[in-house]
């Protein structure tokens, strides 16, 4: 059993009946991107985040975002050390390998933005000093749909920094019943086996970056991305960062399928998760229509 399959098998003990979402989440981690899990409360977002952290064997912290959370609560503060008569930096919860930002959109945009630099640069600047974050560093954020009360919309710049967005959705009846019969996910969490280590994960991430993507494949990817920018289908098209992310995610997807090259189908598989939170469709079905319309082979 390969490491990937094992990881997925272990994870599915905690989150039952959601193999596709688990694959996406793992794909995002392998691609080295940050993950956004979005759904209404009680769907197992936090459980998934916990599970991931646990299985990967990463040290992790969790911040419960609230409306009065301040940037310093995330990044850390300098406190005066009376003994040494000097300021001493007290690192915040962001200094960890896996940061679980729970209900990220309950905090104010200002606090949300405090995560920006950490997520993009892998470092934190406090009081003019850049402090590197440990490697690997991920943010797994959960978010409630914006329509729920007490939420602030995430700024687009922040949304763009999440590689993928996973929506869990209601479990199917069989999975739900199994859950009701068995133990609650949270309890199972504690018993989850650690499958990977941080070094392990970094090696896998390294391999993912070396998955082959041929010219023809990049052409297709590029056609897809520019198609989001043309016409009036979307409010605004995908950014180059999104294009890079799409490629990484496709590589990770191909890797998880045991291939050493990327196929157009890999791009199509990750495209909704990568593009979904970055594109605002003006009409319904924007993304699935786009995938159906952009020619894969580019013969015409």
């Amino acid at each position, binding site marked *: 059993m390969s490491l990937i399959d094992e990881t997925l098998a272990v994870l599915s003990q905690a989150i039952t009946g959601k193999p596709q979402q688990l694959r996406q989440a793992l794909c995002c981690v392998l691609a080295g991107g940050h993950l956004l899990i979005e759904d209404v409360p009680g769907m197992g977002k936090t459980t998934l985040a916990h599970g991931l952290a646990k299985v990967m064997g990463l040290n992790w912290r969790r911040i419960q975002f609230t409306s009065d959370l301040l940037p310093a609560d995330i990044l850390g503060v300098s406190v005066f050390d009376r003994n040494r008569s000097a300021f001493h930096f007290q690192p915040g919860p962001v200094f960890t390998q896996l940061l679980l930002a729970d209900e990220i959109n309950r905090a104010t945009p200002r606090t949300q933005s405090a995560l920006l630099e950490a997520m993009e640069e892998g470092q934190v600047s406090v009081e003019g000093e850049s402090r590197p974050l440990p490697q690997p560093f991920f943010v797994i954020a959960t978010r409630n749909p914006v329509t729920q009360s007490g939420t602030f919309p995430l700024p687009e710049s922040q949304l763009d920094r999440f590689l993928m967005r996973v929506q869990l959705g209601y479990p199917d009846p069989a999975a739900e019943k199994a859950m009701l019969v068995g133990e609650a996910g949270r309890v199972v969490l504690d018993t989850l086996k650690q499958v990977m280590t941080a070094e392990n994960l970094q090696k896998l991430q390294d391999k993912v970056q070396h998955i082959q993507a041929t010219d023809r494949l990049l052409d297709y990817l590029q056609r897809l991305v520019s198609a989001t920018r043309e016409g009036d289908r979307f409010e605004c098209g995908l950014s180059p960062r999104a294009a890079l992310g799409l490629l990484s995610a496709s590589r990770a997807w191909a890797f998880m399928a045991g291939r050493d090259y990327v196929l157009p189908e890999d791009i*199509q598989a990750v495209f909704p998760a990568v593009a979904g939170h970055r594109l605002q469709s003006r009409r319904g079905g924007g993304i699935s229509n786009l995938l159906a319309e952009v020619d894969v082979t580019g013969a015409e």
Partner: protein
Amino acid sequence: MIFSLDHKVEQSVPVTRAASFSLLAVLVLVTLPLFHVLPFMVLGLVATAVIWRLLLLRTKGCEPGWIILTILVVLACLQIFNHYGTFLGLEAGAATLVSAYSLKLLEMRCRRDGLLVAFLGFFVVVTGLLFSQSIPMMLYLLVCLMVLVSVLVGIFQPRDKTGYKPVVKFGAIMAVQALPLTVILFLLVPRVPPLWVVPLPDNSAKVGLSDSMAPGEFAEVSKSSKLAFRATFHGAVPPPKERYWRAVVMYWFDGRRWSQGNSGDWSLVGVNTDQFVSWYPGNPRWAVPGGEPEFDYDVILEPSGQPFLPVLGPASEAIAGTGLTRDWRLLDREKVDLRKQYRVQSGLDEGYDRVLPDWLRAASLQLPKVGNPRTRKLARELKDVYRDDVSGLVFKILQMFQQEEFYYTLRPPKLDANSVDGFLFDTRRGFCAHYSGALVFLLRAAGIPARVIGGYQGGEVIEKGVLQVRQFDAHAWVEVWQPGYGWERVDPTAAVAPERVEEGLESAVAREGSFLEGAFLSPSRYRGVPLINGLRIHYEQLEYHWQRMVLSYDENAQKGLFQRWFGRKNVIPILIALLGASFVVVMVVFMLMAWKPWRRKLPPAERYYQRFCRRMARKGIKRERGEGPKAYVRRISREKPELSREAVYITSLYIRLAYGQARSEDLNKLKRCC
């Protein structure tokens, strides 16, 4: 696209509603300009076809059976034959075509019928051009053509796609693409004289000069604002009072009517009518005066139904295709039934016929034996006073016209049998025909040779060097022969109404208000309104250029143009070479458009895979645009398991070649499979 059709398919596919409707619209559009040409019954047939078809479109009533159709065909044929006495000829042909179109439309069931009707429609549209070639007509028929092209496109539109916009757009693109080809063919295809005689429209109803003149008739001509001809001068346009365009010379007077005379008249003075026309290139048998002609110009003459070619002043030599008459006019060999272009140098002031032959003198002195006694008496009195002083006598008569109560009018009173007496002594109201007729009568009665000249006087300069003459510029004046001098032009109208000669008919009858009476819609009537007049002049300039550059582009124009461009006498080889060259260019452009070599060339693996996809599509599984190779092969395996093995093999090769690590032999393998 049309000629490689499967006949079974064509006969089973019905015509779409949109196509039927457009074909109906074409029928109505095309019939409208032919309205005045077609007999009533044919119009009835058109209406029947349209109404019946519309009812069918609303799924009411049933299609006409063969009995009804046969009856209609027989009726239409009988009616056309009854009306024209033939199926050939312009009007009869047009009526036959329109009837055929209507009947076929009525019968139309399958797509093949629709195609036939559309093709017939192209012929019917062109029919309209035989009756009018003006710019608005051209544009109108272009619209009809566009509709027809769109119908052709629409007939082949898949049935699940509706909406006229893509059809019209495609039709328009096709039309625009055809445009350069049209221009090339128009310019280059060698113009040859027609192989058969085209029957011409019936000109009996034409307004214009005729070869005879009764006083009342001229006023009729003056009520028409139709174009008579346009002249383009190489040099300055002569001033209004010099613009006397000679067309007819009338010698014979029967007491009421002046005419140029038939052979019977001329045999009275002992000459044959052939004798006083000298056809090009022969030299006239009479003395031609020397000297340089004053004017040099091109004329585009509208169809007149008469052989006269108006010429400014006397002409001294014939041009190709024409004859010079003894009285220095130009005649065409045939009646002018199509627009005719000619270039002349003419207009010598003096020296014509210093010596008058006896027969011509006799003709120029001819008068009926009896009638108009008062005029004859006046002539005798004048002759007694002036003796041989011709100028004095003419001057005296003109003075009489000027000083006594003579009026210039477009509404002359009716005259009895002694028309000249009645005019000179009683009514004293008349038009140019009255004055010139009376003057010639007086002069002849006094023994002075004189003749009536019919033609045009004046015209309007619409552009530098371009003079436009309309029917209401028709005019009659007099030529008097003086011993030792020859013929001299005398215009009695100038004595009565000098403004007629200086400024034209409109100002001459301004007070009377009779200018273009009844022609309310004629733009010429509103010359006083600056806006309308400006628009009219612009439009006339446009039409002049259209006529000069497009409609007059005949054999000679083509020859002239290419001789000027290439400096060679024989232009046919040039034309053929150019045609060949343009054919090659068009083919190259066409091929470039079809193959698009500027497109990035597909890698070979992609080409083979496309071939595979096309093969699968023929077997009923078409690859969707957004379908990756793996998803496609999965679908093939699911839907057509018998193809699965091959498809999986080819796809795996292709995937390795396009996306993965290809092995060296993969491409050859793929090539062999596809």
